[in-house]
Structures are given as structure tokens and as C-alpha cells.
């Protein structure tokens, strides 16, 4: 159960190896990596800047990990989320979950991403040729969240 909010890039391969090699009772590692796309809503993206709420971000991500652990039989999890100014192809976020069997890890990883998207205080601002604009929250993210309601 680790959370890091950081400006620096991360080495996804090294992080995943560290997570899965921690225990031979781990049989499954599911991970999500989000990267900056070059086009959004039809416009070419020069940079994407992520603002966040220091303090709340970390506690929100820890709460999401704890909720995932309470719902599924997972052995460990990791969330790394970058902030600051990024470019297309840059990594934004890594979420990784390890468990004995794959079903739990798949569910917990997708759950963490769906909650992160709607509960963790990050905001994206895009710089396009037409200027800067804040990214609007997506209805599809609220819909994705609904599948996890108890």
C-alpha cells in the first residue's frame, strides 16, 4: 500500500518488479499506466499540466487503496501519480495491484483507477495552439464509478 505524488517520471518496469518480487505468494500483477495523448476533444495537445491538493491527494489515494484492500483479497498495491507539466507520451499515473490470483487484481486495479478519476483531487489543464483550457470531468467516469457501488 504505497502512494506517491511526484513531479519526476517513474520507471514502471522497476516498480512492477519490486512489487511482484516482494513475495512468492504473489501469482498475479495487474497494472495500469496512463499516458498523455497528443489529441483531446479534436485539438492537438502541446502540454498537459496537473495541479493537485497537497495533503488531500495523498490521503484520498490512501483511502482508495484501503477500500480496495477491504473489498478484495489483494496482497499489495501501488499508486504513483505525477503532477506538473507533461507532454504527449509522458507517463501520468501507474496503478499496480498484486494478489494470489488474477481476478482480484484485475478488479482492484480497475476499481482504484475509477475511484482515482472521480475522488482524488487532481485537475488537468491542456495547452493547445488555441491557448490553455481546463479539462472537464467526464460523465463516463461517473458512470464507471457506479459499477462499484455496493
Amino acid at each position, binding site marked *: 500500500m504505497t502512494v506517491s505524488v511526484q513531479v519526476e517520471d517513474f520507471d514502471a518496469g522497476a516498480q512492477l518488479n519490486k512489487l511482484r518480487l516482494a513475495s512468492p505468494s504473489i501469482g498475479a500483477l495487474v497494472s495500469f499506466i*496512463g499516458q498523455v495523448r497528443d489529441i483531446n476533444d479534436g485539438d492537438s495537445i502541446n502540454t498537459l499540466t*496537473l*495541479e*493537485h*491538493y497537497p*495533503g*488531500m491527494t495523498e*490521503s*484520498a489515494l490512501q483511502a482508495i487503496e484501503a477500500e480496495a484492500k477491504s473489498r478484495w483479497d489483494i496482497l499489495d498495491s501501488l499508486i504513483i*501519480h505525477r503532477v506538473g507539466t507533461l507532454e504527449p507520451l509522458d507517463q*501520468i*499515473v501507474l496503478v499496480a495491484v498484486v494478489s494470489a490470483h488474477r481476478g482480484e487484481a484485475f478488479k482492484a486495479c480497475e476499481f482504484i*483507477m475509477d475511484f*482515482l*478519476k*472521480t*475522488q*482524488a*483531487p*487532481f*485537475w*488537468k*489543464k491542456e495547452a493547445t495552439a488555441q491557448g490553455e483550457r*481546463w*479539462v*472537464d*470531468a*467526464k460523465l463516463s467516469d461517473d458512470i464507471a464509478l457506479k459499477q462499484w457501488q455496493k
Partner: protein
Amino acid sequence: MKIKVLYFARIKEAVNYSTEEIDLPAEILTITALKNWLSLRGEVWANLFDGKQVVRAAINHTLVDDLATIQANDEVAFFPPVTGG
């Protein structure tokens, strides 16, 4: 009572504050009351809290709804729906 208020993203840009200390009148006890009280500051504030855009609130780093109660020394934050990940 004294509280700290933080603003983020497009709301921070609209009100031109990122953080402020406020000494609230005793009758301002909820997020709704705080929004209404802040709306009295002028058009920008009134527009922000007129209900046409979603303004989420957190108290002490926890997302809350508008009926949540504010206490002395709370850290209250206003921000648009989040868009990380």
C-alpha cells in the same frame, strides 16, 4: 470562528485566491452557508456559487456535501470536479 479556505484549478483562477484565512460570523455553520456568505463578495463570487457549475467542497481533506458542518480551524477547499488519472 477562524477557518482556512483553499481554492483550486479554474475556481482558483476565477476568484484569484489560492488560500485565505477567514473569520466567519457565528451563524455560518455549513458549506451552503459559507457559499452564500462568500457570494456576497461580488459578481465573480456570486456567479461561482449560483449552482450553474459544480463546485465540490472538502473539509480537512475529506470530500463533503453542502450540508456538512464547518468547525473552527477547519481547512475548507473549493474545487471543480476532479480530472486526474
